[in-house]
């Protein structure tokens, strides 16, 4: 196996005094889509936030495309080619939809042009001049993803992109993810919606109390169902 694009070695992280990540090991190869599963509060979101550098109190090794993220300043992380779609979506109320969309600076070639984005999410085009948070929940989720696609990030971290969405939208997002993967995009997906994840991911991590307790490719999914049922109650 070639050197992974994103690699975490023995990463620990804290929120103030509370120790949340207890030695996370994880690797993602270029063009791969992995999914982190786990019950509420196990540290999935925290893992993504730690990669992005939002938690400053952290130890271990995080490398991405040859960059040592442990020493990269917060505002430089994106320039290494990482895109982040946070759990709470992070749509800006004081910005119009289009301004939201145009906000993140383009960090590399190969981002999706605006036209394509609007074709993918027609709702956004229609509402492009209204304030970002006046969109419905689902529309906001689309906006949050669309925003990152524009920047040319090589790898995107998605935190529960399907939460609160209508089935039809979930399906659309699934299609988008598959399309992205075809273009060589690397995706780290955090999902509660197991059924959705199963359709798109190549490989799975199971997270429990701040550690990765299991790892298996999609091909072993059927074999792991029993374990997952126990762990996640799906």
């Amino acid at each position: 196996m070639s050197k992974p694009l994103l690699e975490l070695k023995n990463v620990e992280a804290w929120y103030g005094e509370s120790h949340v990540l207890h030695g996370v090991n994880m690797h993602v190869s270029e063009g791969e889509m992995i999914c982190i599963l786990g019950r509420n509060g196990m540290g999935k979101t925290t893992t993504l936030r730690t990669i992005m550098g939002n938690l400053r109190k952290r130890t271990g090794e995080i490398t991405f495309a040859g960059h040592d993220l442990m020493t990269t300043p917060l505002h430089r992380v994106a320039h290494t080619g990482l895109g982040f779609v946070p759990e709470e979506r992070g749509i800006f109320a004081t910005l119009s939809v289009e301004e939201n969309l145009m906000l993140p600076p383009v960090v590399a070639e190969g981002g999706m042009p605006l036209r394509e984005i609007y074709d993918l999410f027609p709702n956004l085009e229609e509402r492009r001049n209204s304030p970002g948070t006046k969109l419905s929940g689902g529309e906001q989720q689309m906006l949050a993803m669309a925003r990152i696609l524009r920047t040319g990030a090589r790898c995107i971290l998605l935190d529960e992109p399907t939460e609160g969405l209508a089935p039809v939208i979930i399906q659309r997002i699934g299609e988008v993810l598959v399309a992205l993967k075809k273009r060589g995009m690397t995706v780290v997906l955090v999902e509660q919606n197991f059924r959705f994840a199963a359709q798109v991911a190549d490989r799975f991590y199971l997270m429990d109390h701040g550690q990765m307790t299991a790892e298996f490719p999609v091909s072993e999914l059927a074999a792991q169902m029993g374990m997952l049922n126990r762990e996640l109650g799906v």
Partner: protein
Amino acid sequence: MTYATPQADGTRVVLSARGLGKDFAGFTAVNNVNIDLHHAQIHALIGPNGAGKTTVFNLLTKFLQPTRGEITLLGQDITNMKPDRVARMGMVRSFQISAVFPHLTVLENLRVALQRPNGLATQFWKSLSSLQTLDPRADELIAELGLSPWRDRRAADLSYGRKRVLEIATTLALDPKVLLLDEPMAGMGREDVAMVADIIRNVAKTRAVLMVEHNLSVVADICHHVTVLQRGEIIAEGDYATVSQDARVRTAYMGVEA
């Protein structure tokens, strides 16, 4: 699974909206929506994200002023009323993003809800202990919704699901005639969903309920009547069985796989 059928016989209409519409700066979020809520029935409002469900709620409860149309509550025209007036008339809503008073305890949250109907709201000369008269009723509701272990905890300390339950409890405390619930089950664990579904079914025996819900099994389970909204307009209506067979609903909302 029980598919409750709407009673075709003349049940009482408590809330009726005619030709409801709302424009936001040139954008039409809701258009020509007609809704009738019947006494003792659960009515579901479903539709894709951004279809206008929350907006319809805001219009009905007067948190937003409709651009078009009129609303009648219990025979009275409320089209130009203030939201607190409407609430006092007996139509109470919950919010999509959970709405509790975070720094008050569960009990206090319920007391606040009970104060007004019991005429204990404007008395600035009375002591707080005068509110203890509300406790029996509050405790009754707390017990009914399984919140007893958290009675004296601050609402902020509850889990998301519990907060939703608490919100429903405060809503019920007002003993409303019409209940509007915006995604009451969102973010709840399995057992909670079942419990809340039971509660809703129960309270609906004596009042009208309108709820927005993405959880279709719940809709199928407890709702007598379903209205499907898309792009601000009604595309289908009827009981769940009918609606879920509708081709437009299947493509617009459920996706083909559903």
